[in-house]
């Protein structure tokens, strides 16, 4: 409904929710206010966090499939020594694309997608803090991903590794525009991640349901808050680094040119100051999933909630003090290394505490072995190996041997697949009925779980051995006779198992979305607010904004759900609460659907892509961007709207 149409309505018809306006009547009115405009343009202009979150997740899974395909190609190439399936230059492109896609286009976006989808639902609010920024974030992410993959398919994909160390990525050795495309893709995902993080932070701080003080926030929300702040503090670092790289390559600055007092190590410092927190930006939301799943499937609240929260916060802070452990082999002053060794090892304390709390919760409760919990169990068994190899490579004398070998490849796949993808698959299974109103098949789910779990061990455990047997990373081939044949063959076989299992998982997703068993509002008997609304949730999320009195609102609610009333229903109105204790404070309107975030992304894309070729593109390209932003932020109606009468 446009504002003009709304203004025509007689005032007597306008009402607020309350005892007199509830149920189906209210549903109809709210649905009218919160629905998207019709048609394809309406779809493009959606600012609904559920739409955006779903698009984020689906797109990220598509990138996972693409990058996974590349992984299979690499495993085929490495399945035997001196293989010539893929040439050197192509292989370098492939592993660059694999790493870049997995880190920038799958792992971070999929986590943010889950956060965007779930956060307002778990907080008991109707929208994200900045819905248009959120939509803009998605489109920008999509543009960045397309840029990279279109370039790759046109045979101008980057070939400098996902870490892009200069001088290899610099103007002299990074030939052509391949590196520029990589760096500009980073800028896109950067902007997208920052936009999403800003919106999430403000949502969590200001839009919690009344009574949901900081101490009653679900742990997943804590994880989201910590990771969003980490995004805010770490992403500028890689943006600065890649900006400097682009300007070195385009306008001949000397940031990384040692001959003119620049320094190649400057890149490594800036990159890892972002790159290490990045790992936790992926891992912490996963621990949030685990906490939610463990609580629901143990049928009890998490043991020692404050410890888990403190562990999340501590990990977030410590993550910024570890970046040098990626640089132990660069010959920095040896004495400083001890600090980073100690700090790197110290991270295992908060992680160990979280693991304790999960196990204790399972111990105290009565576990129900459904697919989400299976993934959590698989996560603990797998992730702990990755965590412990992390302790091993935190030690300088060990790292100097193992650094940049397949041991590291094994380590971070244990941490990222075991530590983040397993919980993610569990979380998708767990929240799938909420998002679609249908349950996933349990039998297919269990089959794919066991195949992924066992296939993963087969694929990645032998890599530890390959690394110790002297196999460096990022090699397109290796000679026979070094003890690398067997581990590599096993890895390749394992990767095939994982690929089949992931296909099964996707098959399960598709089949269940079409014909799965219908899910009630709370299929697993969960305690957090997202289970209080129907599956799938209505556009407006909650009929009435709930009031929260405990850590497990649905378990402690009793017969009736306490709610607030008196919000406008003819306008997208949100209830803001105070930052710490979440007392109802202000009613603010939320943004209407708009095409402008999409148009702004188009303008931004033109500017960014052209700026690969000429610096003047920045000066000229900013004009359409500014126009799009202006239209985006322009207030909707010139007159302040009348407050509706209270019926």
């Amino acid at each position: 409904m446009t504002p003009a149409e709304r203004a025509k309505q007689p005032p007597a018809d306008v009402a607020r929710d309350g005892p007199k306006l509830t149920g189906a009547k209210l549903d109809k009115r709210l649905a009218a206010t919160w629905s998207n405009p019709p048609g394809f343009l309406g779809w493009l202009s959606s600012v609904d966090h559920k739409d955006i979150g779903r698009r984020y997740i689906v797109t990220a899974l598509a990138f996972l499939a693409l990058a996974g395909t590349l992984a299979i190609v690499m495993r085929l190439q490495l399945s035997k020594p001196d293989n010539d399936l893929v040439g050197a230059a192509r292989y370098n492109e492939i592993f660059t694309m694999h790493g870049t896609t997995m880190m920038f286009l799958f792992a971070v976006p999929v986590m943010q997608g889950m956060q965007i989808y779930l956060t307002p639902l778990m907080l008991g609010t109707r929208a994200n803090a900045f819905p248009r920024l959120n939509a803009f974030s998605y489109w920008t992410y999509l543009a960045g991903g397309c840029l990279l993959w279109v370039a790759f398919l046109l045979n101008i994909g980057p070939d400098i590794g996902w870490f892009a160390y200069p001088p290899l990525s610099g103007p002299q050795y990074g030939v052509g525009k391949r590196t520029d495309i990589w760096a500009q893709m980073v800028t896109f995902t950067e902007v997208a991640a920052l936009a999403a993080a800003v919106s999430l932070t403000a949502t969590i701080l200001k839009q919690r349901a009344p009574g949901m003080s900081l101490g009653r926030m679900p742990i997943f929300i804590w994880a989201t808050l910590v990771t969003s702040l980490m995004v805010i503090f770490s992403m500028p670092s890689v943006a600065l680094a890649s900006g400097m790289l682009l300007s070195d390559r385009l306008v001949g600055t000397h940031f990384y040119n040692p001959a003119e007092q620049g320094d190649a190590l400057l890149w490594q410092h800036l990159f890892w100051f972002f790159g290490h927190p990045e790992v936790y930006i992926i891992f912490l939301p996963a621990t949030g999933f685990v906490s939610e799943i463990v609580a629901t499937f143990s049928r009890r609240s998490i043991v020692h909630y404050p410890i888990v929260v403190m562990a999340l916060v501590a990990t977030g802070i410590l993550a910024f003090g570890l970046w040098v452990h990626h640089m132990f082999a660069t010959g920095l002053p040896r004495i400083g290394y001890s600090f980073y060794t100690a700090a790197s090892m110290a991270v295992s304390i908060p992680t160990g505490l979280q693991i304790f709390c999960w196990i204790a919760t399972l111990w105290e409760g009565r576990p129900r072995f459904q697919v989400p919990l299976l993934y959590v169990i698989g996560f603990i068994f797998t992730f702990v190996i990755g965590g412990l190899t992390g302790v091993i490579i935190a030690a300088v004398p060990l790292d100097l041997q193992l650094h940049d070998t397949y041991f590291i490849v094994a380590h971070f796949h244990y941490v990222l697949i075991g530590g983040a993808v397993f919980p993610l698959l569990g979380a998708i299974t767990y929240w799938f009925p909420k998002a679609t109103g249908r349950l996933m098949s349990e039998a297919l789910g269990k089959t794919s779980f066991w195949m992924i779990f066992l296939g993963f061990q087969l694929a990645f455990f032998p890599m530890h051995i390959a690394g110790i047997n002297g196999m460096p990373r990022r090699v397109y081939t290796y000679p026979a006779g070094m003890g690398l044949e067997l581990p590599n063959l096993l890895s390749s076989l394992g990767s095939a198992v994982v690929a089949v299992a992931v296909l099964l998982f996707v098959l399960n997703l598709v089949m269940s979305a079409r014909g799965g068993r219908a899910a009630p509002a709370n299929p697993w008997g969960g305690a957090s607010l997202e289970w209080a609304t129907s599956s799938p949730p209505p556009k407006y999320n909650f009929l009435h904004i709930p009031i929260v009195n405990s850590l497990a609102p649905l378990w402690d609610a009793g017969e009736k759900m306490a709610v607030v009333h008196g919000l406008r229903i003819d306008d997208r109105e949100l209830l803001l609460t105070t930052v710490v204790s979440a007392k109802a404070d202000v009613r603010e309107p939320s943004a209407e659907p708009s095409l402008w975030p999409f148009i702004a992304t188009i303008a931004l894309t033109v500017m960014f892509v052209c700026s690969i070729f000429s610096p003047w593109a920045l000066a000229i390209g900013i004009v359409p961007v500014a126009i799009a932003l202006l239209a985006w932020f322009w207030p909707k109606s010139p007159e302040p709207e009348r407050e509706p009468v209270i019926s």
Partner: protein
Amino acid sequence: MTDRDLAPSFIEDVSALPTHAFSHRSLTWWGIMAFMVIEGSFFALAIAAYFFLMAQEQQWAPGPWQPPGLVAGTLFTLVMLLSEIPNSMIKKAAENYDVATARQLLPVMTAIGLLLLVIRGFEFNSLHVLWYESAYGSIIWALLFLHTTHIVTDWGDTVVLWRLMKTPHGKDPRRLVDTEENALYWRFVWLAWLPIYVLIYWVPRLFH
């Protein structure tokens, strides 16, 4: 009706709550704060890079380059500091719903922004080094460029607010919240400038 199994019990009426608020009670304030933190980290990291590069040098500004001329940069700093006077007046006016004062002062801020951009042009001219001559030149150009983008964005925002205030939109108290937040952002822009001013103009003088 959704298929929730819990019936609502109406506890609290929020209809009397205000529909806008200043400072940390408003949503956009948190957005602006977050962006200031992002840009602040950006500046902080650029400054760290500056010191990292400086540590590679025996002399700063290195060898053949003269330190930048002081006139334009210092003039810029003075104007920037003085601009805080109308800026805080606007902020106060917005908080007191004084639309008339805001309408009067926003064009002043627009003019100041324009003046600053002109002076900034002279600043680029007085650096005595080009970005492609050495890493030293690259980093001071980068710092100055980074800061210029902030002047430009805030200037754009001020122009828009000024035009908005002249329309009936100006009566909407939420636009006054926007004006207040724009004033807050301007504070960030000049606060961020002060360390950069020292790094561009004074540090190369001290270690030359």
